[in-house]
Protein backbone atom coordinates (compact mmCIF):
# COMPACT_ATOMS: atom_id res chain seq x y z
CA UNK A 1 0.00 0.00 0.00
CA UNK A 2 1.12 3.52 -0.73
CA UNK A 3 2.03 5.78 2.13
CA UNK A 4 0.93 9.35 1.67
CA UNK A 5 2.20 12.34 3.52
CA UNK A 6 1.41 16.01 3.38
CA UNK A 7 4.39 18.27 3.87
CA UNK A 8 4.10 21.92 4.92
CA UNK A 9 7.16 24.12 4.49
CA UNK A 10 7.56 27.81 5.16
CA UNK A 11 10.59 30.02 5.47
CA UNK A 12 12.00 33.40 4.60
CA UNK A 13 12.29 33.44 0.84
CA UNK A 14 15.70 32.67 -0.67
CA UNK A 15 17.00 30.64 -3.61
CA UNK A 16 17.17 26.88 -3.07
CA UNK A 17 14.11 26.09 -0.95
CA UNK A 18 12.25 24.04 -3.59
CA UNK A 19 15.48 22.32 -4.66
CA UNK A 20 16.38 21.54 -1.03
CA UNK A 21 13.01 20.02 -0.14
CA UNK A 22 12.58 18.13 -3.41
CA UNK A 23 16.17 16.87 -3.05
CA UNK A 24 15.34 15.12 0.24
CA UNK A 25 12.21 13.62 -1.33
CA UNK A 26 14.12 12.47 -4.42
CA UNK A 27 16.96 10.89 -2.44
CA UNK A 28 14.45 8.93 -0.38
CA UNK A 29 12.41 7.82 -3.37
CA UNK A 30 9.32 9.89 -2.66
CA UNK A 31 6.97 10.81 -5.44
CA UNK A 32 5.49 14.33 -5.43
CA UNK A 33 1.83 13.87 -6.33
CA UNK A 34 0.56 17.40 -5.97
CA UNK A 35 1.91 20.71 -4.78
CA UNK A 36 1.11 24.34 -4.28
CA UNK A 37 3.88 26.85 -3.68
CA UNK A 38 3.74 30.59 -3.37
CA UNK A 39 5.23 33.69 -1.80
CA UNK A 40 3.33 35.31 1.06
CA UNK A 41 4.99 38.65 1.81
CA UNK A 42 8.65 37.73 2.53
CA UNK A 43 7.92 34.05 3.07
CA UNK A 44 7.97 31.16 0.66
CA UNK A 45 5.34 28.53 1.44
CA UNK A 46 4.95 25.02 0.08
CA UNK A 47 2.30 22.35 0.53
CA UNK A 48 3.15 19.00 -1.02
CA UNK A 49 1.41 15.68 -1.17
CA UNK A 50 4.01 12.94 -1.47
CA UNK A 51 3.91 9.20 -1.52
CA UNK A 52 6.37 6.46 -0.82
CA UNK A 53 6.43 2.69 -1.08
CA UNK A 54 8.31 2.55 2.22
CA UNK A 55 6.29 3.05 5.38
CA UNK A 56 8.34 5.67 7.24
CA UNK A 57 7.46 6.76 10.74
CA UNK A 58 6.84 10.48 11.20
CA UNK A 59 9.91 10.96 13.48
CA UNK A 60 12.15 9.24 10.93
CA UNK A 61 10.72 11.38 8.14
CA UNK A 62 11.25 14.54 10.16
CA UNK A 63 14.84 13.48 10.76
CA UNK A 64 15.45 13.26 7.02
CA UNK A 65 14.50 16.94 6.67
CA UNK A 66 16.56 18.12 9.68
CA UNK A 67 19.59 19.17 7.64
CA UNK A 68 17.75 21.18 5.01
CA UNK A 69 15.45 22.65 7.66
CA UNK A 70 18.44 24.03 9.55
CA UNK A 71 20.45 25.09 6.52
CA UNK A 72 17.63 27.12 4.97
CA UNK A 73 15.98 28.19 8.27
CA UNK A 74 12.68 26.58 7.40
CA UNK A 75 9.70 25.41 9.39
CA UNK A 76 8.68 21.95 8.21
CA UNK A 77 5.71 19.89 9.29
CA UNK A 78 4.76 16.39 8.13
CA UNK A 79 1.47 14.60 8.48
CA UNK A 80 0.35 11.19 7.31
CA UNK A 81 -2.83 11.30 5.20
CA UNK A 82 -5.36 8.73 4.06
CA UNK A 83 -5.53 7.66 0.40
CA UNK A 84 -7.83 9.69 -1.88
CA UNK A 85 -11.50 9.08 -1.30
CA UNK A 86 -14.09 8.78 -4.01
CA UNK A 87 -15.78 12.00 -5.10
CA UNK A 88 -18.32 12.91 -2.45
CA UNK A 89 -21.98 12.77 -3.40
CA UNK A 90 -22.69 16.39 -2.45
CA UNK A 91 -20.19 17.74 -4.97
CA UNK A 92 -21.18 15.69 -7.99
CA UNK A 93 -23.89 18.04 -9.26
CA UNK A 94 -22.38 21.21 -7.84
CA UNK A 95 -21.77 24.06 -10.26
CA UNK A 96 -18.57 26.14 -10.19
CA UNK A 97 -18.96 29.83 -9.30
CA UNK A 98 -16.56 32.68 -8.66
CA UNK A 99 -16.90 35.45 -6.08
CA UNK A 100 -14.86 38.61 -6.34
CA UNK A 101 -14.60 41.10 -3.52
CA UNK A 102 -12.94 44.50 -3.54
CA UNK A 103 -12.94 47.31 -1.00
CA UNK A 104 -11.13 49.06 1.83
CA UNK A 105 -9.19 46.68 4.02
CA UNK A 106 -10.61 46.01 7.47
CA UNK A 107 -10.62 43.23 10.03
CA UNK A 108 -13.20 40.51 9.55
CA UNK A 109 -13.82 40.51 5.80
CA UNK A 110 -12.55 36.97 5.27
CA UNK A 111 -14.46 35.54 8.20
CA UNK A 112 -17.76 37.23 7.40
CA UNK A 113 -17.84 36.21 3.76
CA UNK A 114 -16.60 32.67 4.30
CA UNK A 115 -19.01 32.20 7.19
CA UNK A 116 -21.90 33.23 4.96
CA UNK A 117 -20.70 30.63 2.45
CA UNK A 118 -20.16 27.88 5.04
CA UNK A 119 -23.61 28.41 6.61
CA UNK A 120 -25.11 27.39 3.30
CA UNK A 121 -22.94 24.27 3.10
CA UNK A 122 -21.19 25.59 -0.01
CA UNK A 123 -17.68 24.32 -0.55
CA UNK A 124 -14.77 26.68 -1.29
CA UNK A 125 -12.24 25.20 -3.73
CA UNK A 126 -9.82 28.10 -4.09
CA UNK A 127 -9.11 31.43 -2.43
CA UNK A 128 -6.72 34.17 -3.41
CA UNK A 129 -6.36 37.41 -1.54
CA UNK A 130 -4.20 40.39 -2.18
CA UNK A 131 -3.79 43.88 -0.80
CA UNK A 132 -3.41 46.40 -3.56
CA UNK A 133 -3.31 50.17 -3.70
CA UNK A 134 -1.11 52.56 -1.76
CA UNK A 135 0.12 52.00 1.77
CA UNK A 136 -2.10 54.74 3.20
CA UNK A 137 -5.23 53.46 1.47
CA UNK A 138 -4.94 49.66 1.33
CA UNK A 139 -7.50 47.97 -0.92
CA UNK A 140 -8.40 44.39 -0.14
CA UNK A 141 -9.17 42.02 -3.01
CA UNK A 142 -10.38 38.47 -2.74
CA UNK A 143 -11.27 35.84 -5.29
CA UNK A 144 -13.07 32.72 -4.16
CA UNK A 145 -14.04 29.73 -6.21
CA UNK A 146 -16.99 27.72 -5.01
CA UNK A 147 -18.96 24.60 -5.75
CA UNK A 148 -22.60 25.46 -5.33
CA UNK A 149 -24.97 22.53 -4.83
CA UNK A 150 -28.17 22.59 -6.94
CA UNK A 151 -30.46 23.12 -3.93
CA UNK A 152 -29.02 26.60 -3.32
CA UNK A 153 -31.18 29.48 -4.56
CA UNK A 154 -28.63 31.60 -6.43
CA UNK A 155 -30.81 34.75 -6.35
CA UNK A 156 -31.13 34.59 -2.56
CA UNK A 157 -27.44 33.80 -2.15
CA UNK A 158 -26.52 36.74 -4.36
CA UNK A 159 -28.69 39.14 -2.36
CA UNK A 160 -27.15 37.90 0.91
CA UNK A 161 -23.74 38.62 -0.54
CA UNK A 162 -24.93 42.03 -1.68
CA UNK A 163 -26.19 42.87 1.82
CA UNK A 164 -22.88 41.72 3.35
CA UNK A 165 -21.03 43.90 0.83
CA UNK A 166 -23.06 46.92 2.02
CA UNK A 167 -22.34 46.09 5.66
CA UNK A 168 -18.59 45.74 5.03
CA UNK A 169 -18.45 48.57 2.51
CA UNK A 170 -16.93 46.31 -0.15
CA UNK A 171 -18.15 45.31 -3.59
CA UNK A 172 -18.99 41.61 -3.92
CA UNK A 173 -19.96 39.91 -7.17
CA UNK A 174 -21.00 36.32 -7.83
CA UNK A 175 -20.96 34.71 -11.25
CA UNK A 176 -20.91 31.21 -12.70
CA UNK A 177 -17.64 29.92 -14.12
CA UNK A 178 -18.53 29.12 -17.68
CA UNK A 179 -16.43 26.36 -19.08
CA UNK A 180 -16.52 25.61 -22.75
CA UNK A 181 -16.39 21.81 -22.89
CA UNK A 182 -14.68 20.61 -26.02
Amino acid at each position, binding site marked *: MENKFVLFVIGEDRPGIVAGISGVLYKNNFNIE*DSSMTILERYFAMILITSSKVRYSIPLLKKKFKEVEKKLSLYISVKRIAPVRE*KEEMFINAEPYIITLIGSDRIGIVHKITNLIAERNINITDVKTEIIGEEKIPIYTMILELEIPPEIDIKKFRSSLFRLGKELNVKITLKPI*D*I*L*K*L
Partner: protein
Amino acid sequence: MSILPVIKYPHPLLKTKCKPVSKINAKISKLIDDMIETIYSFPGCVGISAPKVGKPLRIIIFDVSKHKKAPPSNHNLTVMVNPVMIEKKGKTITREGCLSLPDFTGNVTRAESIKVKGKDKHSKRIEFYLVGLESVAFQHELDHLDGILFIDRISSLKTDIFTRKRYL
Protein backbone atom coordinates in the same frame (compact mmCIF):
# COMPACT_ATOMS: atom_id res chain seq x y z
CA MET B 1 -24.03 4.92 -35.54
CA SER B 2 -21.89 4.36 -32.48
CA ILE B 3 -20.22 6.32 -29.72
CA LEU B 4 -16.46 6.30 -30.22
CA PRO B 5 -13.92 6.12 -27.40
CA VAL B 6 -12.14 9.43 -26.79
CA ILE B 7 -8.35 9.26 -26.54
CA LYS B 8 -6.58 11.05 -23.73
CA TYR B 9 -3.29 12.85 -23.25
CA PRO B 10 -0.47 11.69 -23.62
CA HIS B 11 -1.74 9.61 -26.56
CA PRO B 12 0.66 10.35 -29.48
CA LEU B 13 -2.24 11.08 -31.88
CA LEU B 14 -2.95 14.25 -29.91
CA LYS B 15 0.45 15.55 -31.01
CA THR B 16 0.09 14.54 -34.66
CA LYS B 17 -0.56 16.80 -37.63
CA CYS B 18 -3.63 15.27 -39.27
CA LYS B 19 -4.00 14.50 -42.97
CA PRO B 20 -6.58 16.19 -45.23
CA VAL B 21 -9.55 14.09 -46.30
CA SER B 22 -9.24 13.46 -50.06
CA LYS B 23 -12.72 12.09 -50.60
CA ILE B 24 -15.81 11.85 -48.42
CA ASN B 25 -16.62 8.19 -49.00
CA ALA B 26 -18.88 5.85 -47.04
CA LYS B 27 -16.20 5.22 -44.44
CA ILE B 28 -15.69 8.95 -43.80
CA SER B 29 -19.46 9.51 -43.69
CA LYS B 30 -19.75 6.82 -41.04
CA LEU B 31 -16.92 8.39 -39.05
CA ILE B 32 -18.72 11.76 -39.20
CA ASP B 33 -22.00 10.22 -38.01
CA ASP B 34 -20.20 8.44 -35.18
CA MET B 35 -18.44 11.66 -34.17
CA ILE B 36 -21.82 13.42 -34.04
CA GLU B 37 -23.18 10.69 -31.80
CA THR B 38 -20.05 10.88 -29.65
CA ILE B 39 -20.24 14.67 -29.15
CA TYR B 40 -23.86 14.44 -27.97
CA SER B 41 -23.01 11.59 -25.59
CA PHE B 42 -21.06 14.07 -23.41
CA PRO B 43 -23.45 16.53 -21.71
CA GLY B 44 -22.45 20.12 -22.45
CA CYS B 45 -19.77 19.18 -24.97
CA VAL B 46 -19.69 21.65 -27.89
CA GLY B 47 -16.95 20.35 -30.17
CA ILE B 48 -15.01 17.32 -31.35
CA SER B 49 -12.28 16.58 -33.86
CA ALA B 50 -11.32 13.31 -35.58
CA PRO B 51 -7.99 12.92 -33.72
CA LYS B 52 -9.88 12.98 -30.39
CA VAL B 53 -11.56 9.74 -31.45
CA GLY B 54 -8.29 8.28 -32.69
CA LYS B 55 -8.46 9.19 -36.41
CA PRO B 56 -5.70 11.52 -37.66
CA LEU B 57 -7.94 13.23 -40.26
CA ARG B 58 -8.91 16.87 -40.78
CA ILE B 59 -12.55 16.72 -39.67
CA ILE B 60 -14.14 18.86 -36.96
CA ILE B 61 -17.68 19.09 -35.64
CA PHE B 62 -19.14 21.75 -33.38
CA ASP B 63 -22.52 22.73 -32.00
CA VAL B 64 -22.67 25.55 -29.46
CA SER B 65 -26.43 26.12 -29.89
CA LYS B 66 -27.32 24.59 -26.48
CA HIS B 67 -24.76 26.68 -24.58
CA LYS B 68 -26.30 29.49 -22.54
CA LYS B 69 -23.83 32.00 -23.98
CA ALA B 70 -24.17 30.83 -27.58
CA PRO B 71 -24.14 33.71 -30.05
CA PRO B 72 -27.58 34.10 -31.70
CA SER B 73 -25.87 33.89 -35.09
CA ASN B 74 -24.50 30.38 -34.40
CA HIS B 75 -24.78 27.67 -37.06
CA ASN B 76 -26.12 24.81 -34.87
CA LEU B 77 -24.53 21.46 -35.71
CA THR B 78 -21.69 22.06 -38.17
CA VAL B 79 -19.46 19.46 -39.80
CA MET B 80 -16.30 20.78 -41.45
CA VAL B 81 -13.94 18.66 -43.51
CA ASN B 82 -10.50 20.13 -44.22
CA PRO B 83 -11.33 23.33 -42.30
CA VAL B 84 -9.23 26.46 -42.77
CA MET B 85 -9.28 29.78 -40.93
CA ILE B 86 -8.90 32.57 -43.50
CA GLU B 87 -9.46 35.70 -41.41
CA LYS B 88 -9.34 36.53 -37.73
CA LYS B 89 -10.19 39.59 -35.67
CA GLY B 90 -10.26 40.63 -32.05
CA LYS B 91 -9.43 38.71 -28.89
CA THR B 92 -11.52 36.80 -26.42
CA ILE B 93 -10.61 34.82 -23.30
CA THR B 94 -12.53 31.64 -22.55
CA ARG B 95 -12.12 29.01 -19.87
CA GLU B 96 -11.77 25.84 -21.92
CA GLY B 97 -11.90 22.22 -20.93
CA CYS B 98 -11.08 19.29 -23.19
CA LEU B 99 -12.28 15.68 -23.19
CA SER B 100 -8.70 14.62 -23.95
CA LEU B 101 -7.29 16.49 -20.91
CA PRO B 102 -9.85 15.65 -18.27
CA ASP B 103 -8.34 17.19 -15.13
CA PHE B 104 -7.61 20.67 -16.40
CA THR B 105 -9.43 23.78 -17.44
CA GLY B 106 -7.61 26.86 -18.61
CA ASN B 107 -8.07 30.42 -19.79
CA VAL B 108 -7.19 30.60 -23.46
CA THR B 109 -6.99 33.74 -25.60
CA ARG B 110 -8.30 33.26 -29.13
CA ALA B 111 -9.66 35.37 -32.00
CA GLU B 112 -13.15 36.75 -31.28
CA SER B 113 -14.43 36.60 -34.85
CA ILE B 114 -13.13 34.51 -37.73
CA LYS B 115 -13.89 33.64 -41.30
CA VAL B 116 -13.55 29.95 -42.11
CA LYS B 117 -13.93 27.66 -45.06
CA GLY B 118 -13.95 23.95 -45.80
CA LYS B 119 -16.36 21.30 -46.97
CA ASP B 120 -19.53 20.00 -45.41
CA LYS B 121 -20.33 16.29 -45.08
CA HIS B 122 -21.72 16.23 -48.63
CA SER B 123 -18.45 17.62 -50.07
CA LYS B 124 -20.09 20.99 -50.69
CA ARG B 125 -17.79 24.00 -50.26
CA ILE B 126 -18.76 26.12 -47.27
CA GLU B 127 -17.52 29.49 -46.08
CA PHE B 128 -18.85 31.63 -43.21
CA TYR B 129 -18.12 33.88 -40.26
CA LEU B 130 -18.04 32.61 -36.69
CA VAL B 131 -18.12 34.75 -33.55
CA GLY B 132 -17.84 34.28 -29.78
CA LEU B 133 -18.06 30.77 -28.42
CA GLU B 134 -18.55 29.28 -31.86
CA SER B 135 -15.33 30.93 -33.02
CA VAL B 136 -13.55 29.56 -29.92
CA ALA B 137 -14.92 26.04 -30.47
CA PHE B 138 -13.72 26.08 -34.10
CA GLN B 139 -10.23 27.26 -33.13
CA HIS B 140 -9.92 24.70 -30.32
CA GLU B 141 -10.84 21.84 -32.68
CA LEU B 142 -8.70 23.20 -35.54
CA ASP B 143 -5.74 23.19 -33.14
CA HIS B 144 -6.32 19.46 -32.53
CA LEU B 145 -5.81 18.83 -36.27
CA ASP B 146 -2.33 20.36 -35.93
CA GLY B 147 -1.43 18.52 -32.72
CA ILE B 148 -1.95 21.59 -30.52
CA LEU B 149 -3.72 21.30 -27.16
CA PHE B 150 -5.20 24.20 -25.21
CA ILE B 151 -2.47 23.89 -22.56
CA ASP B 152 0.02 24.77 -25.33
CA ARG B 153 -1.72 28.15 -25.56
CA ILE B 154 -1.72 29.00 -21.85
CA SER B 155 0.34 32.10 -21.15
CA SER B 156 0.52 32.16 -17.37
CA LEU B 157 0.70 29.17 -15.07
CA LYS B 158 -0.38 31.27 -12.13
CA THR B 159 -3.57 32.74 -13.54
CA ASP B 160 -4.49 30.69 -16.58
CA ILE B 161 -4.48 27.07 -15.58
CA PHE B 162 -6.91 25.53 -13.15
CA THR B 163 -6.36 22.04 -11.87
CA ARG B 164 -7.78 19.66 -9.34
CA LYS B 165 -11.22 21.17 -9.66
CA ARG B 166 -14.18 18.93 -10.20
CA TYR B 167 -15.48 20.97 -13.11
CA LEU B 168 -15.53 18.39 -15.87
